[in-house]
């Protein structure tokens, strides 16, 4: 009996097929099978948000999704934010506003911020802080991240 299940899905706009064991998380598949290592493992139990991806329009912790669950789904990872060689405004604003230090939580914050701005293009500071509360950053104290998201919202409105 086969121990792996074939899964067809769309990742960053491209059709992708992979084989995975039922126990493998989406995070594990992304990182170890598909070599999309932008999503990070910080806790592997949904506490830190470093592995955030957008699944059918919703920001989720990919460590809490099974690989087999993304059959037919649309997944966006940090690797899918930039358009060819042009950074997404959120990425550009994180750079300009120094919204990262060690950078390990950054992919998760960028993806969570994109999910937020897709839904609420002009969020208040409170909305930004609330929507990013599932992502932990231990380096920055959050201020520069919040300001970068506000900045990105302005850029995207142009």
């Amino acid at each position, binding site marked *: 009996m086969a121990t792996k299940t074939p899964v067809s899905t769309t990742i960053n706009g491209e059709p992708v097929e992979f084989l995975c064991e039922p126990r493998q998380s989406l995070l594990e598949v992304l990182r170890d099978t598909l070599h999309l290592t932008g999503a990070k493992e910080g806790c592997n139990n949904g506490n830190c948000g470093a592995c955030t991806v957008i699944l059918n329009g919703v920001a989720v912790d990919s460590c809490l999704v099974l690989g087999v669950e993304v059959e037919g789904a649309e997944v966006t990872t*940090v690797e899918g934010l930039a358009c060819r060689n042009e950074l997404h405004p959120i990425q550009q604003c994180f750079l300009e506003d120094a919204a990262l230090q060690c950078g390990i939580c950054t992919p998760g914050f960028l993806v969570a911020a994109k999910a937020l701005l897709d839904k609420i293009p002009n969020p208040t500071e409170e909305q930004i802080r609330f929507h990013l509360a599932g*992502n932990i950053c231990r380096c920055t104290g959050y201020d520069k991240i919040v300001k970068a998201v506000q900045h990105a919202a302005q850029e995207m409105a142009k």
Partner: protein
Amino acid sequence: MATANETKTSSYRVIGTRPIRHDGVDKVTGRAVYGNDVQLPGLLYGRVLRSPHAHARIRSIDTTKAEKLPGVFAVISSADIDPHESKMAELGEGSVNLQYLCENVLARKKVLYKGHAVAAVAAVNAHVAEEALKLIEVDYDPLHAVTWVLDAMKDDAPILIDDLKTEGAPLPHSKGPTNIAQHIVFSKGDIEKGFAEADVIIEREFKSATVHQGYIEPHVATALWSPDGHLSIWASTQGSFTCRQQTAELLALPVSKVTVTPCEIGGGFGGKIRVYIEPIAALLSKKSGRPVKVLMNRADVFESTGPTPGSFIRVKLGAKRDGRLVAGDAWMAYDAGAYPAGIIGPGCVCVFSCYDLPNARVEGFDVVLNKPQTAAYRAPGSTNAAFACETVIEELAEKLGIDPIEFRLKNAAKEGTRRPDGPAYPVIGLVETLKTAKAHPHYSATLEGPNRGRGVGCGFWMNAGLKSSVTAHVNGDGTVTLVEGSTDIGGTRTSIAMQLAETLGITAEEVVPRVVDTDSVGYTDVTGGSRTTFATGWAAHDAAIDIVKQMSARAAEFWKCSPDEVTFDRGLFSSKSHALTFKELAGKIQETGGTITGRASVEAKGVGATFGTHIVDVEVDPETGKVKILRYTAVQDCGRVIHPSYAEGQIQGGVVQGIGWALNEEYVYDADGRMRNASMLDYRMPTAVDVPTIEPVMVEVPNPRHPYGVRGVGEVPICPPPAAIGAAIYNAIGIRMYELPMSPPKVCQAIINEASAK
């Protein structure tokens, strides 16, 4: 954010500007290679079996069943690593006893904390490795555990290390086995005489819980032990050379047989200096003949690495009616954790470091107990100490009826002040931070509403110098490749490159910084001690001077004049009749004798200490005990600021860690010494909704002993928050808190106790 002294930096072209960091694009696109992103052909996945007991003898370990599980390639325990004698190895920022390091990596006869590594497996994937761990049979003989520092000092305490000898000052009543690893006594003047002169004396006792550095990236290491005997390690480490040395010593290899490649690192804060899994990955690779990656899970990180000490501190301070401090006495007991750790040392240095005390005595103890061996955490030892000293300072100011900042100004350490541990300060900026804080609109802003209060607090960190090396290659297009050994945790590629650029008169973007492995650059100590921008930046400055010297000689050759006739100013080489920019001359170096490489290795002296003064407004919910931070201003002497954005970021991040320490974070232990909250959800570090904007105010009192006046920024901002928040809570509800964290249950209990006492 303007710095308080912007005009002084204006003569610089690069320093004080905010270029985009060189590694930025890699880090926002997910391309940067962190430790767990390393992939090698045939890679195996390693996992570590850890003790379920806080204290136990190991009777036996049977790995037979695990070895037979399909997909398992190697199983190791302490039988696979030769024991070490008690011998110290230098780590740069501190040193390590190899016997203890070895036993911490893999427990030998005893386990000394829950989470102590016992055995490890390498398998085809992580799931199989975890299944194999369950098949390892360890027979334990559980012993009594002790996790509170004062209990561990008692005569009848369970003894962790039978042959432990107390180092340092003799103990008056030492007899037989002990958990006291180190005893420190500093004194200055005559405290009895000092206290006799005092009009007001206040003495208080303080407890603080164990807290973790809390980096988001778990420890991870990949090792490949080649058949030719060469060991390669890809690590998440604050110091590649420190990692190399510890691993080489533990495995009895010459350092030349070990190459450590520092990957991008997802935070460290002092917790990624000691090796834990690097030697395990190496041994698993040796046994399996394959590369092996060992990754910790989050519970492993909490239970087996870090943390920083829990502590008990008694502080007594005496002052004259006019507000002059006359004497101070501190008694401090810090957790060492399972093995001697020595965080008490800096704790003792820091406790009275903000004040000019004519008479002082500090006594400290490093105490072994059944917790993970403690490690540095951002100004290690200073935050516990500042909470105690600053709270007593607040109470004295209140009793004397003096404004708390004014009281501190009357007693603030300045150039020439001698600390109780001996050294006298060079130029320092505590007074400047106090004056800036006092003049800041936050300090005079109205704070209305019930259960709201404002507090202030100061903090100190000594900063480190240590060794750094760089080489810098001039490229034909006028750029310079800067090769360095300092792991970049928060933008130091850029802050170092900016100092090279400033010296050469080129832009930050014209420098290409590369952090390389231990075979590709000279010895460099850890990224820690707030030393990287200071010391590696100094090396970059010196390498640039070396380049200027060599290029001036080339220009002289080209112009057929004496090198003495060539001058260099802001990127322009000139003689009486000629001039070439750095870029123009760089374009000619291949035709005038070939490549130019600047080099520098520094052992940086002249470290400039850093001080901060913080102001915080809080609101206490009297029903739940929850403390909300309403406003926070952090004034800090940063010395010369190289990259303001990243200096601000250090302050903001440090403050939020300090807020977490003050209000929420703690290791919760059960009666058997097991941590009960070893997940991020239960340990509960601050999130974006828990804190407001932290406003950094940077005062620049340049360090006169550094080429660009750098002091180091990263550590001190974590020190003031607990005391400042404690003062704010007192001003909000009239209750002094003497225990960290000041979490809702503790604040609630204090409110209930106060009400029942009335």
